[in-house]
């Protein structure tokens, strides 16, 4: 029974969603939106579960004085401060329990929640994102080390594409006569991106789409059950 009810739900909802993709008439054209709304409602309740999990996991680590426990404490304090500020004075769009917090806004220029969001959260988030630039450099270095014929090809292609996307690349081959313009680096770069690159990406997308059809069908028909925690 524990598995049968979810399997029946998965079957009914799956079939209805597939059918509604092809029928524009009511009630079928409303089904996907309705199911998405239901999902949002369930997600809303589940958020509480996530917060409880966050608190439980961190408090346990702090109590047991795990290694680096002050970081967990910092995480919990940050969470609590943001929650309290949001509840008391609201956010840019919504008022809080104490209203709009005009006095605080006059002092710091914005509501406390928004102030922390803009001056603490956003810089931290941007810092994480900016790490990507350095990681791309290290990953590219490893990818372009010539070890085999394939990696050689990769490196040559990458150099052409990178140069072709810069003004320096265009300048390097600008002297080429009209008859050899297809060898002009920006043109070569465009060709690589438009044809070989697109073809490979589409092949991956088509196979992924087939995989999605197969995977969905296995779930709808109840052949695949491991996502429920149990198999046949």
């Amino acid at each position, binding site marked *: 029974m524990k598995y049968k009810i979810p399997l029946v739900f998965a079957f009914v909802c799956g079939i209805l969603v597939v059918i509604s993709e092809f029928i524009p008439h009511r009630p079928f054209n409303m089904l996907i939106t309705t199911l998405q709304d239901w999902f949002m409602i369930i997600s809303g309740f589940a958020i509480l579960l996530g917060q409880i999990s966050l608190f439980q996991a961190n408090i346990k680590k702090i109590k047991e004085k795990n290694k680096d426990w002050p970081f967990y404490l910092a995480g919990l304090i940050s969470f609590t401060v943001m929650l309290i500020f949001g509840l008391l004075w609201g956010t840019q769009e919504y008022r809080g329990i104490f209203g709009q917090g005009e006095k605080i806004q006059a002092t710091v220029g914005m509501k406390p929640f928004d102030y922390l969001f803009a001056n603490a959260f956003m810089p931290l988030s941007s810092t994480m994102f900016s790490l990507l630039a350095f990681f791309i450099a290290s990953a590219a270095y490893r990818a372009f080390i010539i070890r085999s014929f394939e990696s050689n090809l990769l490196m040559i292609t990458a150099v052409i594409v990178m140069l072709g996307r810069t003004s320096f690349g265009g300048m390097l081959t600008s002297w080429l006569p009209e008859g050899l313009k297809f060898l002009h680096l920006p043109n070569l770069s465009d060709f690589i991106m438009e044809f070989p690159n697109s073809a490979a990406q589409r092949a*991956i997308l088509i196979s992924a789409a087939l995989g999605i059809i197969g995977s969905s069908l296995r779930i709808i028909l109840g052949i695949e059950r491991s996502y429920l925690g149990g198999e046949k």
Partner: protein
Amino acid sequence: MKKVILISGILFFSTLLFAQSTFFWIEDVPWDDGKALNIKANVPADTVYLQKALEDGTWETIYTGKGRSLSFTQNELNPDIKYRYRLLVPRPAFNDTIFFMAEAQPKEQWFYLHKLSYLLILLAVSIAIIYYVQNARKGKDYYIRRISGLDCIEDSIGRATEKGKPILFVPGIMDLDDIQTISSLTILSHLAHKAAEYDTEIIVPCRFSMVLSAAREVVKEAYIKAEKPDAYNQDRIFYLTDDQFGYVAGIDGIMVREQPAANFFLGSFYAESLILAETGFSTGAIQTAGTAQASQLPFFVVSCDYTLIGEELFAASAYLSRDPQQLGSLKGHDFGKLLVILLIIAGVITEMSGWHWFKAFFEGAQ
């Protein structure tokens, strides 16, 4: 002046009688969800004003331009309401304006005709999958090519066991309504079962609460199936944050502090893919990644030891379970690939021959 008014009046009433077939008429947009009307007119005037009647009795101008062969599609209408439109045609020579009126109600249809090709392909692939599954049920064996990224799972767990370090499993950054996340959880089920058998700890940080509850259930059942329910530690499957880069920072921290011996990044990933994979690489862990996001695959290929590309992520559960029925369904995927190859070849031939209907038929599904 009286003559002008008389002529205008005659024109007005005559157009009311004949408007639908001659100067101004409305057609329902076919094969749609009843939210659009095609408003058409054919009057020899350089400037006409198309107006729609509003609820308060006023008129809103929705088109200004030439009146000859005019075709205007109005969208976002309600199929329960009858809409009234009028076409104003100024006549500078007579210093007056005549108008035509028409009304129509959009109709909901029972089929999106432009999705017919999509439906046919879906049916063909689904029938093939069901056919192969049925054959597998009858005992037919199918050859499935080896997927090294999945074969390595046991080696990765073995390595983690030898080193006495945990396994890190990241189920992507999307919620449970993404099929990649569901596929990821099916792999987690197999992985957790193996980890339970080897007595190796598994860490699953989640970005969404729905994924958290599903992941906990999946891992718990896997431990029960492995007859080690006591070894299941709920605290190791936890929620981090909904924020994309906050989530990445949290996982990076886990990788650096706990030094997992094996990392699995399976699911839907975006800009954070390389940050995760490179941090994992720097810790020396065996890394297996899998996603259907074509733009993130190069990053995983460079930084991870094994990568499941696109379809392999969805085939993983069937491959790992070795269940003949599920393996049979993978043969259905192969049929789908063959079908796509044939359609591409047919498309190239028909386009080169000048028969554009074939491409147009499949373009309709977009």
